[in-house]
């Protein structure tokens, strides 16, 4: 598996798109830092970008890599290598290389700006951790979709729809349901609703760490009570972890039965 991982990683590390992705974050973080002159504010703005962009890039890269390397995957399948190793290797290769672009792209400017002497380092670490989780989650989801769809266009379409749903539409439905049922106690429901979507979960997790939960009103207080504690943080990270592990197993299960 590690050999496949290594080569997938090298393959992507040399792709122009990895550098564009890296440079985008580099420029974004630099501009934010030197315009804002405030680490915490920069973290918030970055979060808004990362929460939406990381899943999108993960989805698109995952789908594109799968379909582009199809024939090569077939070449590997004819070698004495287990299927699990091939797909796990490719999946980790993409996820790690994308995570590295993110990590270095926003890590370098923040480190230069003096992150290590600042109190924002924990918020920043949490931002990075959720960013990495989102990358792994969405690449895994994209792989699942591509494995189940022979047709490139369909696979691409479904993957983008899934992203759109989790990043945008879900929030809409969520808000509508809150308004519709505003006469009922909704704190438990909204807590569960947030937990079920990795994008929302990441956003809430960071926002509450940043101590701006007062903006969120009463529900914010409930959330603060939950996410603000170590237990809440632990459960949230566990849910993100589940969001990573379940699709990964689903990739392996599908790959074992698939015809190439």
């Amino acid at each position, binding site marked *: 598996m590690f*050999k496949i991982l290594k*080569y997938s990683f*090298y*393959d*992507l590390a*040399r*792709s122009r798109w990895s550098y564009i992705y890296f440079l985008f974050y580099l420029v974004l973080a630099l501009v934010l830092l030197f315009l804002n002159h405030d680490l915490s504010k920069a973290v918030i703005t970055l979060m808004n970008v990362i929460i939406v962009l990381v899943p999108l890039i993960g989805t698109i890269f995952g789908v594109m890599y799968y379909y*582009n*390397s*199809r*024939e*090569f995957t*077939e*070449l*590997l*399948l*004819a*070698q*004495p*290598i*287990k*299927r699990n190793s091939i797909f796990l290797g490719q999946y980790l290769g993409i996820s790690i290389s994308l995570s590295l672009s993110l990590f270095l792209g926003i890590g370098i400017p923040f480190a230069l700006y003096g992150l290590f002497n600042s109190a924002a380092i924990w918020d920043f670490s949490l931002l990075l951790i959720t960013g990495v989780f989102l990358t792994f989650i969405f690449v895994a989801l994209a792989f699942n979709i591509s494995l189940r769809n022979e047709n490139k266009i369909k696979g691409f379409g479904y993957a983008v729809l899934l992203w759109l749903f989790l990043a945008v539409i879900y929030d809409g439905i969520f808000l509508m349901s809150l308004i519709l049922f505003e006469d009922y106690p909704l704190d438990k429901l909204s807590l569960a609703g947030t937990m079920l979507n990795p994008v929302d979960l990441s956003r809430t997790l960071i926002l509450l760490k940043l101590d701006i939960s007062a903006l969120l009103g009463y529900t914010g207080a409930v959330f603060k009570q939950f996410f603000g504690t170590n237990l809440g943080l632990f459960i949230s990270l566990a849910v993100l972890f589940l969001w990573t592990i379940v699709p990964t197993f689903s990739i392996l299960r599908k790959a074992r*039965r*698939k*015809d*190439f």
Partner: protein
Amino acid sequence: MIEITSLYKKFNKNPVLLDLDLDIREKGIFAILGPNGSGKTTLIKSILGMVIPDKGEIKVFGENIKRTSEYRKKIDYLPQIANFPSNLKVKELIKMIKDLRGNTERDLHLIEQFGLEPHLDKKLGNLSGGTKQKVNIVLTFMFDSPILILDEPTTGLDPLALIQLKNLIQKEKKKGKTILITSHIMSFVEEMTDEIVFLLEGNIHFKGAIQTLKKDTQQNDLEHAIAALLEKNNV
């Protein structure tokens, strides 16, 4: 070497292989022929474990291939479409496959034979179709496995490379290997192969020497013999 018993495979609701039995014990070159959609590639891919059969059993050197990958060390496979990661250089791809399968020195000779030296430092995405096929050939032949499976090996090759490929296949045959080839070019099949396995609608309709087929169908060349075989079966 390869024993297949009642192999059954359907894609969605479309049956491709219908309880196919095939037993290849002898050494030599076997051509797997048949019209488009007769199940040639599915058969080959089942042997390689790329297609998972619905029913039936495949044994390679007496070992059931279900859920194992080790047996593929004994098989070299030349796929039909050669598409490699475009960011890798030819050199790196060869190194990588060696890394995955074990070291070999045979590639040096093959690279020289197919004149690939000037391309070694090029990225695979920048190669022409024929050159890619040559790389594909090097990757397949650089391991000395007892079974060779070649899916349309002549695609995109220039006449010189084609002659070299033929010599290469003959050389491997003399070593006592079992070689399976699919091809649509009948002259190539006639020149190269000892036996024909003719697939039609998911089953084997003829297995035997080219001479026998010609005699059975009372035709002088293979192309017409195959056509006669198809006509006999009302296709």
